[in-house]
């Protein structure tokens, strides 16, 4: 009997410790139960909330904003298929039905914005439960709210009404929400950004490259200008001007980030940060902007890399004849923004293509650079301020700010007089000063001039496809410029799995 008891005792031990034996948490990953508990955790969480901006600026914004406008277009390579996704954006030929589009770039922009929103929601829902230094907490909350506001502002401008998520999703059932009207999205994002303005330190007190009070003020001013709340915008913009934190850099060419140097300079309010190297934090948009097929010898002088490789496929974001013509005589910004390359492999008779020079900075690694993407810079503060003033009838005061920008570009003071003329002058000045910085499309949409400007642009392009980089004998697809809309349709892949749209 005693022996049997020994065995029974062993069985008992086995059973009691089974739950422990069967509980194996991952050793090489953190889990939600153990995270969001210290200041450092929240710092990391905020850092991760910035990360989707890299994808957005590197791969999407220039497609959805710049190539959508009359500033740039793809350079058709007839040897290459599977280019519709980009061409549909540029050609205003997006397949669309019942407010839904299958375009993959639209989808990815949407998803990246919601990634920022989900990460910031997680931070905001947990950060007040953890005790740590208030100044640090305010700063982190300010950055999170800035980013959430920024993401919702992108969504509102691209899509109008979208789902409004403000708390973390924890189950399958909570994932899909109904569309919230555009006006309510704006109410929410203005609240977020206003809070960020209050919480964030000024640039000189903030970590380099992070959202600061000035960046938040500029973002909010941008929102107000879109909403035509000119007076509110003026207040914010004047606060930036008088803060003394920012100034125009004398030489326009020196404004833009290099792969390593000249980042977050005196003119920069906010820019998307990249790092050249194998860390996977680099940008490579410069390569997307190359007309193709481009050989290594043709590419090397532009990128300056020691190991260039040829690029095939189709080049994107190529300056249109329209933007090239938009520069006034003697505008120093023209040659700083646009250059030309001869592509031997082109099917066109004219093998010379323009490309965006602003970002064409030499770097070491092929297809890997650290060039930052500008979001807000001081020149735009001045142009916004000019616009806000002019719209309130303060046209003369507006001219002063406009002329600061023109003067740097080597141009005389504006000769625009009267509110209407001045409005047009500012509109055109923004086009060339901020060319290829993803501003043009929203300038057109908020001015409600989509049909007029894009319609005309389409007519010109269809009539002269060779001017728009089509090889001889080839032309636009028959559906080009047949779907010119202010907002993007919502992404099909999301529509398929939400019951709400």
């Amino acid at each position, binding site marked *: 009997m005693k*022996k049997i008891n020994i065995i029974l005792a062993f069985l008992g031990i*086995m059973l009691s*410790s*089974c*739950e422990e*034996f*069967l*509980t*194996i948490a*991952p050793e090489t*990953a*953190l*889990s*939600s139960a153990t*995270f969001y508990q210290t200041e450092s*955790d929240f710092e990391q*969480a905020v*850092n*991760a*909330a*910035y*990360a989707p901006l890299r994808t957005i600026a590197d791969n999407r914004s220039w497609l959805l904003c710049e190539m959508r406008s009359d500033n740039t277009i793809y350079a058709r390579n*007839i*040897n*290459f*298929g599977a280019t519709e996704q980009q061409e549909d954006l540029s050609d205003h030929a997006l397949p669309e039905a019942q407010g*839904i*589009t299958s375009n993959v770039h639209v989808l990815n922009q949407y998803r990246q914005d*919601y*990634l920022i929103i*989900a990460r910031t*929601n*997680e931070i905001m829902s947990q950060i007040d439960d953890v005790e740590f230094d208030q100044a640090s907490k305010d700063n982190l909350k300010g950055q999170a709210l800035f980013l959430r506001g920024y993401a919702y502002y992108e969504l509102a401008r691209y899509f109008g009404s979208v*789902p409004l*998520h403000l708390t973390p*999703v924890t189950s399958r059932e*909570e*994932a899909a929400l109904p569309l919230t009207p555009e006006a309510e999205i704006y109410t929410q994002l203005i609240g977020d950004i206003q809070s960020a303005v209050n919480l964030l330190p000024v640039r000189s007190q903030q*970590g*380099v*490259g992070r959202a600061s009070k000035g960046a938040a003020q500029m973002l909010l001013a941008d929102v107000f200008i879109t909403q035509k709340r000119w007076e509110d915008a003026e207040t914010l913009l004047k606060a930036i001007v008088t803060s003394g934190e920012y100034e125009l850099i004398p030489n326009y060419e020196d404004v833009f980030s290099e792969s*390593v140097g000249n*980042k977050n300079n005196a003119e920069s309010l906010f820019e998307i*940060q990249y790092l050249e*190297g*194998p*860390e*996977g*934090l680099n940008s490579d948009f410069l390569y997307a902007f190359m007309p193709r097929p481009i050989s290594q010898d043709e590419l090397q002088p532009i990128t300056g890399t020691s*190991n260039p*490789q*040829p690029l095939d496929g189709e080049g994107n974001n190529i300056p249109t004849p329209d933007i090239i013509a938009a520069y006034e005589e003697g505008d120093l910004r023209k040659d700083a923004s646009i250059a030309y390359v001869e592509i*031997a492999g082109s099917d066109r008779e004219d093998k010379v293509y323009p490309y965006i020079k602003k970002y064409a900075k030499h770097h070491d690694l092929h297809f890997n650079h650290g060039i930052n993407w500008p979001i807000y810079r001081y020149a735009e503060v001045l142009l916004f301020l000019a616009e806000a003033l002019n719209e309130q009838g303060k046209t003369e005061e507006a001219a002063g700010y406009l002329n600061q920008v023109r003067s740097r570009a080597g141009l005389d003071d504006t000769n625009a007089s009267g509110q209407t003329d001045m409005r047009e002058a500012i509109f055109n000045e923004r086009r060339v000063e901020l060319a290829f910085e993803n501003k043009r499309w929203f300038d057109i949409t908020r001015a409600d001039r989509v049909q007029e400007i894009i319609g005309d642009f389409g007519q010109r392009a269809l009539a002269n496809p060779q001017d728009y980089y089509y090889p001889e004998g080839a032309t636009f*697809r028959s*559906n080009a410029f047949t779907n010119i809309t202010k907002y993007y349709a919502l992404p*099909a892949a*999301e529509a398929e*799995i*939400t*019951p709400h749209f």
Partner: protein
Amino acid sequence: MKKDCYPILDSRRLIAFMAAMLLTFASYAQSTVSGVVRSEGDNETLPGVSVLVKGTTRGTVTDLDGRFQVEAAAGEVLTVSYIGYATREIPVQGGQTEYEIVLASSMSDLTEVVVVGYGSQLKKEITGSVQTIQGDDLMDIPATQMAQKLQGQLAGVQINQTTGKPGQGMNVRIRGQLSVSAGSDPLYVVDGFPITGDISTLNPDEIQDITILKDAASTSLYGSRAANGVVLITTKRGKAGQSSVALNVYTGLQNVPHYNRLEMMDAVEFAQFKKEYFEDAGRPVPDMFQNPSQYEGQTQDWYDALLQTAPITNYNLTINSNTEKMRTSVVAGYFDQEGVVLNTDYERFSLRLNTDYTASDKLTMGFNLAPTYVRDNTPRTDGSRGTGILFNALHTWPNMPIYDDNGELTYFNRFPSETGNIFAYPNYVRSAQEITNETKQTNLLSNAYVQYEPIEGLEIKSTINAEIRNSKYFYFNPSTATPGMNVAIPTVASSVRDNREIFSWLNENTVTYTKSINDHNFQLLGGFTNQKFRLDRTQVAANTYADDRLPTVQGAININRGSTISDVQEWALTSFLSRLTYNYQGKYLLTAAIRADGSSRFGSENRWGVFPSVSAGWVMSDEGFLNTSDKVSFMKVRGSYGVTGNNNIGNYTQYALVNNTVNHVFNNSVVPGAAITSLQNPFLGWETTQQFDIGLDLGLFDDRIQFVYDFYTKNTTNLLYNVQIPQEAGFGSFTDNIGEIKFWGHEFAITSRNTQGRLVWTTNANISFNRNKVMDLAEGIDRVYGNVHITQVGQPFGQFYGLRKLGNYMNEEDLNSSPQVPGRSTVGSIKLEDINGDGIISIGGDNDDRTIIGNPFPDFTYGITNNFRYGKWDLNIIGSGSYGNELYMRHLFSTANLDGVFNMVQKATERFRSPEDPGEGIFGTTVGGGNVTGIERDWANSNFVWDASFFTIKNITLGYNLGAIANVIKSARVYAAVQNVYIFTPYWGGPNPEVSQQNNGNGDGGNLSQGVDLTGYPVPRTFTVGANITF
């Protein structure tokens, strides 16, 4: 600190436990019985006869003089069986220790003892669906892996060789089991140990026999791992009284025959195509293509240049040394295969030592130790355009030189862009020769058991098993070569090192009690097991080497951080199991089994799964009413029902993970970032399969013809599925158990001994019909897409999905009167069906015209094996086939790119050129460039789908038995064999109709996207000669 559930592995406790077992039961004894076995008629003694004490694992084999000795108590029954003879059951009488047993010859093999889960059973008494293959029957087949040798021989088991890479690519599916995202490979159990690593490293010559468990009653004792079926592998063990030394050796050559290669254009045809391309487009013809006939005899066959005739060699030495107390079997093997693609090879050193020791009447113990070392090298042969060397070579222009004027391999080729050459082609011969893609594995599989029988019929067994696997993977791409396309040479040299260490242990403790009361025979099994697995992995990726000769990590200028990782994967499994087997007079059979599995993979709210089964059989031929028939010698009907699981759901899927490498950068400095990247699911569990099986075993004409039929139906529910959720949530998916797939099928197998006497001819044939239907997916989701596939509710799993081709637009009238792709369709371009009837052809979105366009799964699979023996000659022919399966010839997107960018399939010479010259209808016009041709090329459509039914003569072996030679060699046999003799198939897209490659990045384990042909490593034809010699 985690604490192991199972205290036994603590060594002190282990000793205490064992000691307790020994002390408890040490005082019982049995007597030894001995005897001799003779055959009826000639009265010769029979060596090698199995003598088993019924219901136990005690047993022995008669020696050369037909004598045996076994421990048995009065009242027990000796089961005496030998192939070709009727099994006899001899009751042991008290007082009688010497027995003379006479066996009558019989054709039936029903007296065979078959290994089943946690025991063995008389074949006659089995109530589930199982099939057994003897290792000796597979020995002559010159193949690296066990699964290759089984092709065509198993009913209900589809075995495809998806690539010819040495040592890789076997896809084994039992009864068509599939899952959306969980693995579908069967569970491999080697000597009772469910192994966690790759079964392909096992030396097939170590195998005594293989039992395939197909229905739930047979598999349910493996619980949450059984739903894909179970393969039990028993390795060779010593048999009492037999000592021997055997040498098996074969050597031969492999090649890739020409008859079924993908036919590409030769240089003349290609130049002619290019000439026509430019002419048809109204563009000037480049000088290079003005005169195609100049390339006569100048074709550079890039594909052929990658191939070689390669040797294959296999040596195995088996030593059996058996004494009364100690039985030992040692198998030492060396296998060496060079691949038919340059610079590919596979090498295996293996050793297995199996020992059984009879310590006393009641106590036996044993140890198995099986180390193997496997090294293989396959430099990126398989893959799609831009990633696979074979694919890239196939469509390299046939007028590009492989060698330069000095006879050196060129580095890369690129013609002026006006020729339409938009890609630089590296020299893929150089790529194959210079890229290293090597894996070295050191494996150790070991088992130890102790078995104790305290009283008659009661056996207590405890086992400890360990599996250790170390693998070192090394990839180096020097600056002079690349598997990619359009990469200039020199390129960026890069390396990857991936070191993995797996340790898995299993402890099993079982108690078996066997009792017969009158004609009621019972066996009760109870058990408790624990298994744990741990993988430690470190991968380092580096690039930009100063010197190709020093591919060390420190020799690299950059460490590729994104691919440099360390990882730990662990799981634990605790189980309780029990089985009751009952029969009355061996005629009415009943088995009930149950296993409860607790797994670390299952969510905290759903930790334990219970898997019961029940089965019954009725040996009708033992009833009086059938005994009158001399035609029906055996008849058994059987039925089973059970529940099994599939726990291949990932180790940590249930957890919400925080990824702390979501880094960002500020002002050129990396800052650490962290974000939740998955949602938790505490209810996550296994996939459940309920299976019902009904079967008939029939023996006719004294079992000369044996027939087995099975019908099964299975319902798999709680499918593991990564339910897509709207990404407005910040997450792409939520892993849950949802959905349902129904499977059903018929299996027929027949064994016929056609002739006896001087010519012995036997035929084994089988045919299987497997079907499935998706019954349900997630709420609100009725379809899941694969690569060019759809898995849709109400349809069979994983169908090809795309637009349906009607032909080409034959002329203006046809074009204008037919639905078109707006802005893209022209005369001669592909004409597709307007499925939704909206007047235009489109893909995706709300106007989608896609539909199901093909099925990668066969209507039926079949196999037929014929064995002939005539005097000293023997001949074996194995055939294997599949009917109704289709392949998606995905490489056509490149090998039939109508823009003249690549070399093309020869059939493209017969494309549409004009209404007067419309070609064969397979390929459309080249005019209009990518805007037109892109539809045919880039939109999934039925032009890619081709019948890939096949019948393959897998193996022919001709042997000659030399008999004994002098006093040294007891027996010797020599043979010649051909593997993959010939494939009969209408499929023209490449040499391997069994190919299936995934190129989808969906992470779905490939199940959703089967039957895609992206070319790939060809399966060679192998010629060998060999010998089996026993000393």
